[in-house]
């Protein structure tokens, strides 16, 4: 187990280097660099020279990259070429937004997916089961951005309702929990519906599998109530694959955050990465992809550990 964790942690630097180097080189390939964008369309050579010197864009690529890497190791992630702000200060502001979005999404997805999945597993081939299966395939199919657009539009047209983040900035949870939850509820819900469909299906199949076991029959035979059989005996074993899948979905959810944040105008990391990619703000893209990659690998590692913790029979070689 320890060997396994160490091996996975050793993979982390490889991935960080690979991801940042790939982003860096990719953006070196594009001829128009950030200096062109800063100096405008006429591309005044003097201005360009000055900007390139200021940000060190005139040096050889490996010097630039090595420099960035050294600074990053010391906690200085560079400066946004466009906003001229330190990437770290931007991140301090934006990470909480994305984090809250994702956490709320997972909570809502579990809140919808688990009960419906369980219900559908303990009452197979009933109308409730059919309905839940239809719901899951429906939620799975409607893209989140389309759902978001429909909610915003018809919310406004039919109920005169606009999402509360429009016209008002992000309100941190500690300042005003109620407004904060209002701001995040709908984006999270939109993102969570697709996620809940995955969980619903998985819960159902996993529960069906577990409910066939002998110890469940024993539990019934002892005369336990259904609640006890389902929640205490069956769910505890059925939940393990569900946890794995949540971990695996982190990458997809981060991608979803890019969409939902730009749709709902939330100033999180997802919107930041989209803007930076469009504007070729190389250091920001590098930092953010690194951040995403680390959280993806970290989440998967955490899942593996949790897996072993939940089910002591599992051993990693």
């Amino acid at each position, binding site marked *: 187990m320890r060997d396994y964790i160490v091996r996975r942690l050793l993979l982390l630097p490889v991935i960080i280097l690979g991801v940042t180097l790939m982003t860096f080189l990719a953006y070196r390939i594009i001829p128009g660099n950030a200096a062109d964008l800063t100096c405008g369309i006429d591309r005044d050579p003097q201005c360009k020279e000055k900007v390139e010197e200021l940000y060190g864009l005139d040096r050889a690529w490996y010097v630039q990259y090595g420099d960035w890497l050294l600074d990053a190791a010391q906690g200085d992630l560079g400066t946004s070429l466009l906003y001229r702000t330190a990437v770290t200060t931007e991140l301090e502001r934006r990470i909480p937004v994305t984090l809250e979005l994702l956490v709320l999404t997972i909570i809502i997805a579990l809140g919808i997916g688990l009960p419906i999945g369980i219900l559908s597993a303990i009452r197979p081939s009933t109308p409730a089961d059919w309905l839940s299966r239809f719901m899951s395939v429906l939620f799975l199919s409607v893209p989140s951005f389309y759902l978001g657009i429909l909610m915003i539009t018809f919310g406004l047209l039919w109920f005169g309702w606009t999402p509360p983040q429009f016209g008002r900035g992000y309100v941190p949870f500690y300042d005003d929990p109620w407004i904060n939850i209002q701001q995040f509820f709908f984006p999270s819900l939109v993102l969570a519906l697709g996620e809940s469909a995955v969980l619903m299906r998985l819960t159902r199949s996993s529960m069906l599998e577990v409910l066939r076991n002998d110890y469940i029959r024993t539990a019934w035979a002892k005369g336990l109530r259904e609640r006890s059989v389902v929640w205490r005996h069956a769910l505890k074993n059925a939940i393990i694959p569900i946890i794995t899948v949540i971990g695996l979905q982190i*990458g*997809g959810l981060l991608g979803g955050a890019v969409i939902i944040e730009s749709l709902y105008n939330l100033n999180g990391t997802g919107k930041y990465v989209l803007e930076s990619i469009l504007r070729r703000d190389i250091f920001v893209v590098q930092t953010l992809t690194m951040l995403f990659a680390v959280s993806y690998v970290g989440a998967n590692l955490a899942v593996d550990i949790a897996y072993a913790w939940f089910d002591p029979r599992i051993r990693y070689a």
Partner: protein
Amino acid sequence: MAQEVALPLQLEEELPERGRRWRRLAHTAHRHPLGVFGVFCVSLLFFCGIFAQVDIFGVSLSIVPYDPLAINRETDVLGTLAAEVDAEDKQLTVVGSSLELGSSFDLETERITVTRLVSEIGDTHTVAVARGSSPTAHAEGVPLKHEAALALAEPSFSHPFGTDHLARDVFSRTIFGARISLLIGLVAVLTGVSTGAMLGVISGYFGKIIDTIIQRGVDILLAFPAVVLLLAIITVVGDEDSAVRRFLASSTPLPDRDFVGIPNFLDVFIVALAIGLAVGVFTTRVVRGAVLSIKENVYVDAARSMGASDARIMWRHIFPNVVALVVILGSVLLPVAILAEATISFLGIGVPLPTPSWGADLSDEKSRTLMLEGYWWPVFFPGFALSLIVLGFNMVGDAFRDLSDPRLRGSGLGGGGRGGGGGGSPL
């Protein structure tokens, strides 16, 4: 993969006579209405994608009632100019007009857009206009031909899905969008799955250093969220001056402009290749896993002891065993690729706008603003088509899973297109 293998045992006895395949098929269809619906949706995608516009052997066939790109060419006479106008005029006085704000029309060679109503006396309207830059006609008493008279028309008999703010027929655009989606999906899946399968076989078969290199590469690419990876690749490769793009434009027979009715074909193709890369990464990982167990089989050892080369073993003994897996992966990844295209086009980086892609139609700034004012149809229908197609694929996948293993009913194993996260679950 035939249905007969798949039927659960007790069902087999209920069946009338053996060998009547169509009856079994009807029976299966009856038991899986959602699967039938799915097959219908998928066929619709292929039908629309192929027949949206066909120009082959001199026969021109089209199920699209209007040109999805062109601003609608139907003209209306809107009224007559009351007085002479020249290049500087920003106000026109029109007799008997029915000009709407935001509508545009032609004054001889110049395009003019109505921005504001200045005054209204009897049936003579004076409107403020925005003018193009071309030298202007001096015109007296010219009837104003209104091209965009049908902009933002509600869904009606002649325009089933209405028209958008440029008076393009939304129905035609939606149908045509199927062709873009289908093309991107097929190109992405074919290129991605074939290269991915090849790398997966090589990686799994040789093991050791080759495996390590390929798998670390896969690790790195999988660590990007799919959407971010696609956005980064497309901004880099799709750039006007990028080497890859220039290579594709000059050294391959790919046309830069129009092809099979698709404008900006090269951009569309680059998007497809980028999605293909993401598909390939995933395929490599899955195929490699399968190869690891296949290569332990005795027949591989037997072949090697008979002196077969590595290439022969891979091609003749290992590859045939992963073909089924590869085909299934391809069919599962097709809706994911379609969804990925729509997602990145929605974010404004995929297919450029005049091309009728569903995702791009959803992202159109102007349409989205107008949607909030009640003109919902230019955005609603492309998104609906996209959802319907993905739903269709998912339902086919579910039905197929039920047929092949009734125990897994509704389990979601094996995936299918994934709408929620916007990137697709495997990607």
